[in-house]
Every structure is written in C-alpha cells, then in structure tokens.
C-alpha cells in the first residue's frame, strides 16, 4: 500500500479555477488605460420637469455622453450634488439648457399621448427606450441616442423622477428658494 504524502496530484481544472479571476481581470487591467479617464461627474435629481419648447436628446460623438439641450425648460425640486456640496432649487425656469450626461434615468411623457415610459440612457446608449415613439425619436432600446435618427422630442415633454450623472451643465436660470449647503 502506498503511503499518503499529503500532496494532491496536479489537476488542470482546479488550477484553472484558481487562476480564473486573474484571467478575467488581466485583460480589463490592460485595457483600462485605453478606456480613457472616466471624468469628474456630479449628480442631479429633479422631481418634475416640463418644456413647452424643444427637448433634444443627442448622442455625443464619443458615445460616452448624451447631450441634452432645450431652449426653455422648467424644473421643480432640483438637487445637485457637486463635490460634497448640495445645491437645492425649488422651482427653476431655465433657458438655453445644455447638459452633458454620462447616465440618465427618467420617467417621460410626450405630448400627453405617449404613456409614461421609463427611459434609461447609459453614455449615448439607450438601455431602456420609449415604446411606440422610440424608433421615430431615436430612443429605442439597444440603439444610440442620436439627433440624426429622428426629430427632437418637442412640445409638452414631461419628465418625472429624473436622475442624471452629469459632466457639465450650462443654462441661464431663475429660481425660488435656493439653498446651498455641505
């Protein structure tokens, strides 16, 4: 009878299982510098917003950002978290809105006709789109938000419970009840 030495015979599958995390992680680690700097972002929450004017949701050229523009738009109860500072605005009338969003999630109603749809934009990719009108507006699931694909969302666009991870926001605005705190 052969004495047991305590040493297990080499098993390829066991070894592969141990090395699997490294096999998965290595290409990601190597590719990370090529993905570029994710960039500094700030977060925006808006309870309710609407526009009587145009709302453009435009895929940005680098595919990591969606640009949202509107000549005139109203927001209720906005909170912006930027570098540990909260900016809270109760009622905002904004003009010349230009927003670069890395991620956006909102419930959207168009023209009071399309039922409430949950829209999720990840980079310029539409993770969850607008049924019925999505194809026409270029906001169909698994597509890229792109102004060339369709007309802007226009007239009577409402958004509720909006959450945005933004890179940049530009606008002219007036608001009631402003609070800035840490």
């Amino acid at each position: 009878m052969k004495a047991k030495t305590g040493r297990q015979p080499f098993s390829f599958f066991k070894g592969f299982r141990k090395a699997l995390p490294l096999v998965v992680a290595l290409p990601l680690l190597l590719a990370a510098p090529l993905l570029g700097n994710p960039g500094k972002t700030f977060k925006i929450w808006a309870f309710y917003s609407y526009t009587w004017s145009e709302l453009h949701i435009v895929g940005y050229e680098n595919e990591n950002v969606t640009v949202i523009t509107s000549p005139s738009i109203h927001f209720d109860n906005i909170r912006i978290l930027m570098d540990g500072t909260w900016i809270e605005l109760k009622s905002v009338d904004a003009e010349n809105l230009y927003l670069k969003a890395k991620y956006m999630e909102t419930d959207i109603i168009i023209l009071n006709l399309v039922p409430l749809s949950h829209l999720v934009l990840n980079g310029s990719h539409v993770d969850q789109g607008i049924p019925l009108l999505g194809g026409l507006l270029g906001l169909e699931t698994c597509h890229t938000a792109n102004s060339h694909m369709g007309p802007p969302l226009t007239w009577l666009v409402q958004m509720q419970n909006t959450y945005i991870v933004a890179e940049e926001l530009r606008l002219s605005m007036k608001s009631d009840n402003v609070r800035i705190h840490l």
Partner: protein
Amino acid sequence: MEGFGKMAAIGLASVVGVVVLSTVTGVGLAMPVSDFQLKAGSIDGRNLNMYAGSMDNYGNKIFQELSSATLSQLEIVKEMSLGGLTVRAIIQSPQASASGVLMKCDNFKADAMRAGNQRIGPYGGRDFAVTADNLYVENVSAWVTEMSVASLNLGNMVIKLES
C-alpha cells in the same frame, strides 16, 4: 454698587465696540473676518465663481467669489459671549457695494435667484465649480466663516448691540 455697574457697562461697551470696529474695518481693509451671519435683501453680483473646498485643503467650506456686488439691506450679525453674557453686534447698511468679494461659508439660502450664463462643471481651473456672468439673489441668509473684500462702501451704516 452703582459705580461698579457703570464700570462694567463701559467695559462691556468697549469690548463690543472693538469687536464691531474690527469687523467693519477688517472687511474694509480686505482682512478676513470670521464667523458671522450675513443677511441681505438682495445681492447683485458679477462674475460668480463658486466651489467647494476639500476637507484637507480648505476646511470643507463653500467658497463664493464675486468680482463686484451691490447689496441692499445688508445685515451682519456677530454673536459673542462676554463673561457668560451673550451679546449680538449688528451692523446694518441699506445700500452697500463691494468689489473682489471672497466669502467662505457653511450654508447659503436665498428666496429667489437669477443667474446669467450659469455653468456647472470643470470651470475656473477646478474640477467642479459653478460660474455665472451675473448673479442676483433675494432675501439671502448665510453663515459665513470667513469673508474678505478688496473694497467696501457701506452707505448709512448703523451699528447696534443686542443682549
């Protein structure tokens, strides 16, 4: 006893007077003045640059810079504790103007706000900043931990003490 009361009153008034004067002249001479409540009926400012100081760099405060500002119904309230007695020194001016304003505060409240060409993002050499060409705010209340101005013009200034 009466004499002691008079002396105490004179002593208290002197201390408070020094604090109030140092506050006013400090602001006027661009020296930082700390820990007071600022109220204003309105502030009309130019070239806003607002940013947050990081915990290790600037004590985690909100920084607001304005190249110039016109303030109405300005009120600066500074609370002091003198021998167990809490005294509030109040400086009021119905119309004030300032240039080169830097305000470091914990919070900032306003009933209304207008901003022209406001931008939020990587501006003013910082990763995160709020900038605007012009800023108008109404019924402002802010807890200011430090403030300095390059020049200050206080019209019809009133200083009073409350205990």
